[in-house]
């Protein structure tokens, strides 16, 4: 071992290098306050290694990104842990960088001649935030997609150059493959290279100027208490680093990695919220409207300029005011606290808003659904076609978009839509329709009032309902009851308007195969056919330009499931 070391040393001189690194004099002695810089290096290594692991599987394209992240989460060995560590590691970088900044600030280690240490450090902090911003989009899930939209839209607000800048940032006029390749290249090539270069400069400058004497300690005392970096400071740094890694691993295990929301859907309603460290900026924008929005967006930049100019301001003012360092430290600390307060305010606003809770619950539901459907693989055409894996799920999505504009959710109060279809064609739904066709939940709002309410006894109502229910080829239909209903259908006068022959009279919908697959598909395609409402039709016609065959089948599949659902109106 020793001989190998000698051989290597003669050629590389590595022992000198290691000694130089470990014997760095720590003026005033080792202390816990100094651990943050090393902790950032540990975190950087963590992000680098977990990032490389993710890159082994990640695919930066609009069709594949979400699917590949789902694959990492569920199929890669410890993939979930890797994602979790990378996610929490990013947050830890911001926290520890903030602590490192505060420590440097209060110890006065930014003062001349360390201006450039400070400025490179601040630039590194900005790089950390850019890492976070670019990384957030990469899973191409709802969260990253919408939060990043806000960021790039803000760039677009810049007067004059906004549009080209926004296009440059997102790789085109809108989000897509080019946005992902751009963000990915930035995240894994450009930013790491810049970080390595700046970190090198930062460390070089640090070694050049050395550790400052701690505040409240005389220069001579600091000199006397100087000790080398190794071993005490190294032990403290490593201890803190290990604690940090253990904490992150604990967080990652507790949440089994990190959430992957439903795939990015440009047509959806989604609550765009940034990650916590950008919440203050998000909250700040709430206070600026119209032309002032730009001011809100630029305010943090002004704050940043102030922080960057700190060593120069100190140098300028300290000639006249010797205690200016403390004032400056207070200004920056209070500024950070203010940002924290803004973040808390953002959280509190959301917690108090019932609409936020509703949208969050909806997002959680969609995420769980997408995760389940993706377990058999994601279609090559992209993750949004995932929902096509399950016709009922796909049908509900199409229904929500295309049908619910008129057939409102039953829970709307007051109800102003056309017939409410939750529980559609169930026995209960049919029975209620027969009793109260003019109710607002049926044809009341559609102003179809030709149908008379059925006034027969309860048993007859049940038989009639069963007859109509059985038309939809229901496996659980009661044949005896249905045939009783069939007899009533004629004797009670239903047949005066409604036919049951598959052709229709033009007076009222033909009921042969009512609410069955073929009936529904034909109805959706042409409700104005003589077989259905004829000239009295008031429903929109869904031809092939509006819904393709697969979408119609899906909507039909979804509507068919409603017969086993409870009716959701009074």
């Amino acid at each position: 071992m020793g001989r190998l070391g000698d051989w290597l040393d003669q050629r590389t001189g590595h022992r000198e290098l290691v000694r130089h690194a470990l014997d760095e004099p720590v003026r005033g002695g080792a202390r816990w306050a100094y651990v943050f810089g090393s902790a950032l290096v540990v975190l950087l290594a963590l992000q680098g290694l977990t990032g490389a692991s993710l890159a082994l599987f990640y695919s930066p394209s609009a069709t594949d990104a979400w699917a590949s992240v789902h694959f990492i989460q569920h199929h890669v060995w410890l993939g979930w842990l890797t994602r979790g560590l990378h996610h929490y590691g990013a947050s830890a970088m911001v926290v520890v960088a903030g602590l490192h900044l505060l420590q440097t600030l209060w110890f006065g280690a930014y003062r001349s001649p360390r201006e450039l240490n400070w400025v490179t450090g601040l630039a590194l902090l900005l790089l950390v935030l850019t890492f976070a911003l670019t990384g957030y989009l990469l899973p191409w899930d709802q969260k990253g997609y919408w939060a990043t939209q806000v960021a790039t839209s803000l760039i677009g607000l810049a007067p004059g150059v906004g549009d080209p800048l926004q296009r440059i940032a997102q790789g085109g006029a809108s989000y897509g493959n080019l946005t992902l390749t751009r963000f990915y290249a930035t995240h894994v090539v450009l930013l790491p290279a810049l970080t390595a270069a700046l970190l090198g400069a930062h460390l070089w400058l640090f070694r050049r100027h050395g550790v400052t004497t701690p505040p409240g300690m005389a220069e001579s005392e600091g000199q006397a208490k100087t000790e080398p970096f190794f071993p005490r400071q190294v032990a403290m740094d490593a201890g803190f680093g290990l604690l940090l890694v253990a904490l992150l691993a604990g967080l990652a295990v507790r949440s089994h990695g990190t959430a992957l929301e439903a795939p990015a859907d440009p047509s959806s309603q989604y609550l765009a919220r940034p990650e916590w460290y950008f919440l203050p900026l998000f909250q700040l924008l709430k206070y600026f409207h119209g032309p002032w929005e730009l001011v809100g967006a630029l305010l943090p930049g002004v704050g940043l300029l102030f922080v960057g100019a700190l060593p120069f301001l100190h140098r300028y003012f300290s000639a006249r005011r010797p205690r200016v360092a403390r004032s400056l430290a207070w200004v920056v600390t209070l500024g950070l606290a203010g940002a924290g307060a803004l973040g808390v305010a953002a959280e509190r606003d959301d917690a108090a808003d019932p609409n936020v809770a509703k949208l969050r619950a909806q997002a959680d539901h969609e995420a769980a659904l997408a995760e389940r459907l993706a377990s058999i693989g994601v279609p090559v055409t992209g993750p949004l076609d995932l929902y096509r894996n399950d016709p009922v799920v796909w049908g509900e999505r199409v229904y929500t978009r295309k049908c619910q504009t008129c057939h409102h959710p039953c829970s709307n109060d007051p109800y102003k839509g056309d017939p409410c279809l939750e529980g559609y064609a169930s026995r209960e739904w049919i029975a209620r329709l027969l009793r109260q066709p003019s109710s607002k939940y049926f044809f009341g709002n559609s102003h179809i009032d030709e149908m008379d309410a059925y006034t027969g006894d309860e048993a007859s109502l049940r038989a009639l309902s069963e007859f109509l229910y059985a038309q939809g080829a229901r496996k659980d239909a009661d044949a005896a009851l249905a045939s009783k209903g069939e007899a009533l259908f004629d004797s009670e006068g239903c047949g005066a308007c409604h036919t049951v022959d598959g052709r229709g009279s033009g007076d009222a919908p033909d009921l042969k195969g009512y609410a069955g697959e073929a009936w529904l598909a034909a109805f959706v395609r042409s409700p104005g056919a003589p077989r259905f409402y004829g000239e009295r039709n008031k429903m929109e016609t869904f031809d092939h330009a509006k819904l393709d065959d697969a979408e119609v089948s899906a909507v039909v599949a979804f509507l068919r499931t409603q017969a086993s659902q409870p009716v959701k109106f009074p």
Partner: protein
Amino acid sequence: MEGTTTRRGLLGTFAAGLSALIGAVLSLPFLAALASPARRNAAPASSGGFIPVIPIWDLPKGQPKRVEITADGVDAWARQPRQVLGAVWLIKVSKEEVKAFSTVCPHLGCSINTTPQGYGCPCHTSSFSTEGQVTGGPSPRSMDPLEVKVEQNMVLVRFARFRQGQAQREEI
């Protein structure tokens, strides 16, 4: 002075140990990710069920016919409809019975062709009888038979791949 040196030595070992531990912990997820494909069932596989390939009347009796196997496949995460998984040699023995062989040579994976004597691999000249038995060349075993059945005049094959270069047949 001696005490200080010992303390420094102990603390030094402690510090170095902690640093090494951090390194080990950080490497763990990376090594796992790197080694992940070596595990079995590392990815959701295409279903290993029978795949319909050709109507029985399209097979000439007694003569091997090479037929492509197309099925919905999953490449890592991407589900691709009607993907060509590979090919298979089909020999109709009777109206109800068909034999199937993998077209992949058990030696090193080249594609097996028919020859006047039966089958042969053009890469390293392994030769096989009409029954798929190895008759010459470097192939360590006979051609790999595939499970096949005929249902409602349709020939269905359970497509499989086998480890190459060994005498024992092992599905992968």
